């Protein structure tokens, strides 16, 4: 039994769908996988599916070869049933490990995406034209191109955010020295050297997998130690919706599954363009795509740890961009969490993205909308939850700080009720005691709960004066967090990594003195 792991929050799941509706959607997905089936562009996968009894037909599509694959529901269900319902995502610090259990709605929140843009916020004073004595500070936003030093900074900040449970690189590294060949090793090293939390990312090149895994082995203490404490895991967006298995991503699935490390099978259809906009059609299709992906993982290696990765979004109907801050996004996503639970596979879900381009009221509204709903749904692993703005195109560190506070409140809100005989007895005793006192005040009896952290605190960035200083206060708090010592790897480990792994940028080589 795992003795140390992050608590997350155990919730009583909110469910949109009845069991009957879940079964209808399951049946619809099975029908989709039988007819029309999927368009597979990877030969290895097509052969593997065929070997296990799928109906596979080769077709020419333009300049490429495609295999049309029809699955029986028996094949899918048998494979999905082999996926473990419980496994651990490791971390450099044991207390930061995550315990994923499909049957236990323990919710974890983490960062996500790979935004190209970093947004800095500065507060600039402005004076009233009518009365120069009246001054306000207004946020000014500066865009910066993401690079490896900013990714390090993001990881260090995320290390300090107490409600961020895992780290998915929120920023794309676009240094001039970074190419597709060394993108992955630098991305993983920048993350692993700056946070002790679980690190997850996609792979730019399948060829980098060997080096990335070796790096993780060095940090974890060897191949066996990495198996026992998988400090890294991988995301693969294996489907191009609708229903097309992508060649190179499928190769990455083969590679990752063969290492034995955990993998996310993620799909992100857009309701209204690459999937039906209606809830039933969207969920039936994304569920079919994810099940086909999970089937692939289990046919490659039975029992390999896999997350059901649902990122269903909706199209804006004025420009067909993704739309995250809308009710349908919640509906699609909650349904997917229920589907994952039905198949007993831990769910990688999505919350906290919005359409707002900068921190502010729209961002807060949109983020709260999904942060709360998805936590209520009992998804085990919620990504995209920190700092993302402008759909998933920007990462703003102070927004991550604001999200941390919001998620903390949500975690507190959703904690299980502590109502049991011993607690009720204590409360009765207190009530009688207070009613026997001259002042009839419960304040002194709040102390134990207050100091044990059982009672929530006021909003961290509130202002006592008659104005809204949230952003300014959050920036100040962020500066304090950024003064904390980075959790760098020790010098010997870094030396070994730099000796063995090619392509690392010298500028990333910080170590503990």
């Amino acid at each position, binding site marked *: 039994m795992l003795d140390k792991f992050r608590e997350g929050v155990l919730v009583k799941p909110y469910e949109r769908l009845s069991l009957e509706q879940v079964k209808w959607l399951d049946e619809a997905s099975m029908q989709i996988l039988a007819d029309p089936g999927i368009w597979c562009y990877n030969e290895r996968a097509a052969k593997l599916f065929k070997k296990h009894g799928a109906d596979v037909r080769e077709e020419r599509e333009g300049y490429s070869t495609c295999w049309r694959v029809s699955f029986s529901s028996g094949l899918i269900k048998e494979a999905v049933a082999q996926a473990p319902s419980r496994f651990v995502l490791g971390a450099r610090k044991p207390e930061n490990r995550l315990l994923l259990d499909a049957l236990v709605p323990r919710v974890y929140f983490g960062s996500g995406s790979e935004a190209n843009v970093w947004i800095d916020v500065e507060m600039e004073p402005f004076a009233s034209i009518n009365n120069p004595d009246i001054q306000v500070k207004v946020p000014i936003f500066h865009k910066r191109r993401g690079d490896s030093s900013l990714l390090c900074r993001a990881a260090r900040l995320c290390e300090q955010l107490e409600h961020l449970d895992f780290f998915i690189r929120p920023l794309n590294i676009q240094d001039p020295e970074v190419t597709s060949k060394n993108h992955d090793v630098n991305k993983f090293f920048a993350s692993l050297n700056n946070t002790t939390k679980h690190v997850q990312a996609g792979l730019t090149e399948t060829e980098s997998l060997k080096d990335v895994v070796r790096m993780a082995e060095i940090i974890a203490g060897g191949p066996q130690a990495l198996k026992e404490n998988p400090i890294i895991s991988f995301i693969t967006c294996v489907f191009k919706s609708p229903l097309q298995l992508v060649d190179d991503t499928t190769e990455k699935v083969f590679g990752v599954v063969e290492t034995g490390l955990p993998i996310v099978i993620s799909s992100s259809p857009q309701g209204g363009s690459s999937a039906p906009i209606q809830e039933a059609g969207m969920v039936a299709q994304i569920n079919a795509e994810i099940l086909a992906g999970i089937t692939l993982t289990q046919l490659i290696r039975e029992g390999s740890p896999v997350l059901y990765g649902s990122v269903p979004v909706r199209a804006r109907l004025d420009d067909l961009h993704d739309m995250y801050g809308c009710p349908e996004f919640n509906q699609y996503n909650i349904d997917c969490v229920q589907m994952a639970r039905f198949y007993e596979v831990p769910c990688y879900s999505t919350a906290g993205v919005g359409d707002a381009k900068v921190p502010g009221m729209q961002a807060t509204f949109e983020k709260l909308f999904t942060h709360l709903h998805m936590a209520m749904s009992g998804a085990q692993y919620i990504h995209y939850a920190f700092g993302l703005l402008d759909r998933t195109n920007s990462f703003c560190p102070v927004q991550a700080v604001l999200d941390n506070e919001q998620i903390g409140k949500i975690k507190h809100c959703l904690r299980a009720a502590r109502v049991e005989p011993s607690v009720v007895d204590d409360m009765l005793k207190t009530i009688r005691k207070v009613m026997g006192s*001259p*002042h*009839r*005040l419960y*304040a*002194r*009896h*709040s*102390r*134990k709960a*207050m*100091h044990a952290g059982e009672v929530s605190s006021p909003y961290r960035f509130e202002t006592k004066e008659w104005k809204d200083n949230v952003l300014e206060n959050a920036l100040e708090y962020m500066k304090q967090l950024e003064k904390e010592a980075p959790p760098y790897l020790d010098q010997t480990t870094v030396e070994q990594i730099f000796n063995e792994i090619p392509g690392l940028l010298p500028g990333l080589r910080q170590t503990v003195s």
Partner: protein
Amino acid sequence: MGKNELLEKIAFNVIQGRLEAEDEGFDEGLEGKPAVTELVKEAIEQELDPKIIVLKGLTEAMEVVGKKFEGEDYLIPDMLASAECVGTAMDLLSDHLAGAGVEGKGKFIIATVAGDLHDIGKNIVAIMLKGAGYEVIDLGTNVPTEQIVEEVKKHQAPYLGLSALLTTTMRVMGEVIEKLTEEGIRSKVKVLIGGAPTSQEFSDQIGADAYCKDAFQSIDVLKALAS
């Protein structure tokens, strides 16, 4: 238990906010051990100088509590718990202090005015002022104007605190002040007002001596008025 040890334990329990032996405090293993009530009684039995008990056992401990509050280690419930300990200790010591020729800081009558049943803020102020060494006479809630004035006269109290939570009852505070004037005792009593809808502006408007936004300010105001 030696006298110094007894004084240290009283101070320690004030800081812990432990009124009675069954209280928990912050540190593990305190439940069941004597707290402020039991320790002060023992100190009286051992005939410790009541002034020393007040100074070393209570006042210095409350200074520590105040610093913890300023440092945000303590919140209101902690302050109240400690203040309640001091208030109770003062009750136990009152006769002995009088016997030793020690005077309190004065009588403070406090009431929620007529028509208003709210008393959380009033009770907090009462606990804090008692803990600060005032003799607090709490008249309760929904107290008629005439009764408030009668109690001020009866006790010859130098201080009166009036509380209201409702915008509809706050005007009664003004009526109390008018009544004090009518009875010819307005100059003998300092009137402090407080409560959510009140303000410095309202205090000025009805002719009160001070507006207190919270219990801490009421202590500061009283200190200023006494000097």
